[in-house]
């Protein structure tokens, strides 16, 4: 079972954990990406995310399919937030369950690493004195 979702509302990592809970599972791994208050020593006010939503959902689905198949997961959830996200709030939640912990750890790591490479979502860091699209320039 996979649950792929993009929203402008707050994410709920606790609900995601419950979604992947399963009788046959011996391990659940949850990654929560939260908004940090600084980057390279510079104070960040908040982040702003935008996406090419149709394709983002498709790419997130591919990640969940691949991870589920490769690590024999019971369930995987990938939720991403868009719009303005304040400091400390959740920007992304990835949760998965498997029979044993090793598979869940590896699948979760694969999912967040691949999301950062392939899913068309863009993050802008907003500072007191300006803003920067993250990773745009070398």
């Amino acid at each position, binding site marked *: 079972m996979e649950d792929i979702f993009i929203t402008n509302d707050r994410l709920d990592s606790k609900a995601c954990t419950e979604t992947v809970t399963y009788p046959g599972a011996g391990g659940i791994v949850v990654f929560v*990406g939260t908004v940090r208050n600084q980057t390279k020593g510079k104070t960040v006010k908040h982040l702003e*995310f*935008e*996406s*090419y939503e*149709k*394709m*983002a959902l*498709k790419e997130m689905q591919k990640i969940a399919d691949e991870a589920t198949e490769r690590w024999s997961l019971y369930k995987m959830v990938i939720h*991403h937030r868009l719009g303005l996200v304040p400091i400390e709030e959740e*920007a*992304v939640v990835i949760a998965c369950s498997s029979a044993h912990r090793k598979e869940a750890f590896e699948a979760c790591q694969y999912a*967040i690493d691949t*999301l*950062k*490479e*392939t*899913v*068309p*979502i*863009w*993050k*802008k860091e907003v500072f007191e004195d300006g803003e920067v*699209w*993250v*990773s*745009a*320039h*070398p």
Partner: protein
Amino acid sequence: MEIEVVAFGIAKDIIKGKQVSISLSDNFTVGEARKKLSEQYPDFSKLTSLRFAVNADYVQDDYVLNPKDEVVLIPPVSGG
């Protein structure tokens, strides 16, 4: 033919809008569209990468464009 190219993230700032129309002769490839856009907007060459998506899938530079394609510029992604 005319192709509408939609932009996101920093690509929107570079073209100063949500989309740009480029004229190409028939059977032009993504690589040729890329060249044309880079000439028109030199700031694209400063990016870490610039990928193209057609109909919500990544495509390579040898993809031949069709006027009905939904063409989207994908500057370096930074989700998560």
